[in-house]
């Protein structure tokens, strides 16, 4: 379970998170919606300990992230897969080497045969051909880079998956491919996931629950149905433009009931 209790964070005079409470149950996929620059990525990075909150507690798997030693934090991180917005692939390493770095168990990482097999398996899971392993990130398209980023995140068989705007900057077709992938990984791997996005359609498609981060606070949390039914002005304002498309998308793909 991931739990944020009263988390606050400010950068100089800019309050990004203000007393945020947030819970993701085991096996659940939570989509975190909100306008650009509202602090969604800050919240996601505070879950994995890349950003330390000024106040409040972040508890992952029963551990208070801020109180862990370096070694304990590294161990906790090995149970979390993080998909970065632009892939954050290591330029000087091949795709295969990038994915291999995601195998966080040292004994498994030292076993070359296992790693080769796992790299192939992860590439298959993200719908990429095995020969992509030999390529370098610069040779890949934006969508492929994101998929390799996902492959790296799942290579260590994590318990939690955190996605930072996995569909941003992609055309609708590629965004759909990534959404399908997130949905399928959730079904096949059964991990607990948090997806930060401002893509309403994608969120309604993949999420069990949706939260709206608005002006540094969690404004609404609920199932897609509850969010749709919300009379909160901020929720309605945020969803207004994309609502119709979200409903159409959801009906056409027979995704989560909206």
């Amino acid at each position, binding site marked *: 379970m991931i739990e944020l209790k009263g988390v606050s964070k400010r950068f100089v005079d800019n309050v990004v998170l203000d007393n945020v409470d947030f819970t993701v149950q085991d096996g659940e996929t939570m989509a975190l919606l909100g306008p650009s620059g509202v602090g969604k990525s800050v919240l996601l990075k505070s879950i994995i300990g890349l950003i330390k909150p000024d106040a409040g507690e972040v508890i992952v798997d029963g551990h208070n992230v801020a109180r862990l030693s370096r070694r304990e934090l*590294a161990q*906790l*991180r*090995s149970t*979390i897969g993080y998909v*970065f917005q*632009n892939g954050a692939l*290591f330029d000087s390493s091949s795709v295969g080497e990038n994915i291999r770095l995601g195998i966080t168990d040292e004994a498994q990482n030292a076993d070359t045969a296992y790693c080769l097999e796992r790299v192939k398996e992860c590439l298959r899971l993200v719908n990429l051909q095995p020969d992509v392993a030999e390529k370098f990130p610069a040779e890949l398209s934006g969508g492929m880079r994101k998929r390799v980023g996902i492959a*790296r995140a799942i290579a260590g068989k994590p318990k939690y998956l955190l996605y930072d705007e996995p569909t941003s900057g992609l055309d609708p077709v590629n965004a759909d491919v990534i959404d399908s992938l997130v949905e399928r990984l959730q079904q096949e791997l059964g991990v607990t996931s948090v997806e930060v996005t401002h893509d309403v359609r994608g969120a309604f498609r993949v999420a069990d629950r949706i939260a709206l981060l608005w002006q540094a606070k969690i404004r609404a949390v609920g199932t897609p149905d509850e969010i749709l039914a919300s009379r909160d002005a901020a929720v309605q304002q945020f969803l207004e433009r994309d609502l119709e498309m979200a409903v159409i998308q959801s009906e056409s793909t027979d995704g989560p009931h909206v």
Partner: protein
Amino acid sequence: MPALTAALDLRRYVGRWALRVAAHAGRFTMFIADLFRALPEWRVWVPRTIEQANLIGFGSLFIVLVIAGFAGGVTALQAGYQFTGNLPLYIAGGVIAESVVLELGPVLTGLILAGRIGARFAAELGTMRVTEQIDALESLGRSPFSHLLLPRCLAGLIVIPTLVMVANATGFLVGWMAAKNSLGITNADFVYGARYFFRSFDLWYSAIKALFFAAAVTVIPCYIGYNTQQGAEGVGRSTTEAVVAASVTILMFDMLLAQLLLSPAK
């Protein structure tokens, strides 16, 4: 009233500057401590250090040879200009050897490597920071210190003193040839002069300087690159800052070490 405002502004400026310096001092100390903490992960940093050492060593060899050669040659020509008719020629052997070993070899090599290696490290690490590659490494439970920073610093500490010794030898040999041509000094006179003024401590001094310069060329740019912020502009700023800071530190070390090591050895 304007005088009071100006005074308050000055106090604010000095206060902000002092806070920045204190913050950097704290972060730099933590950075050094983290480098030491990464030492037990030798399985990670040893292969990467070898890779970096090859890149630094072979990549910089040509430019180091060129710079050292020119430095030795120019020293010989200037010695010829200053000494002709006034001093015995064998002194030129001592002047050239001592100038190259004590000063020109280490300092010129250090400065050229501050531009070449320091800029590369700062730009590489800065780009990795702003493209979230360092965050990605941390998110995988891996230490950027054992994977990225320690290998670069150690490779520099091993390779740069070696390059300085190569530069010393090159500068000395080219200086010798140039002195023969410009001054007409015999080999015997040159060798006599070089040996007359030479002390084995000079080579140690050169090596110690090289080690300090290597630390300036690697650790400072790594620190600046690692703490890069604000995208491409930040990477550009970090790269410039790294070269300037490393170069100034080299010159500061040069003076400090001369005072500390040469004064007592007189």
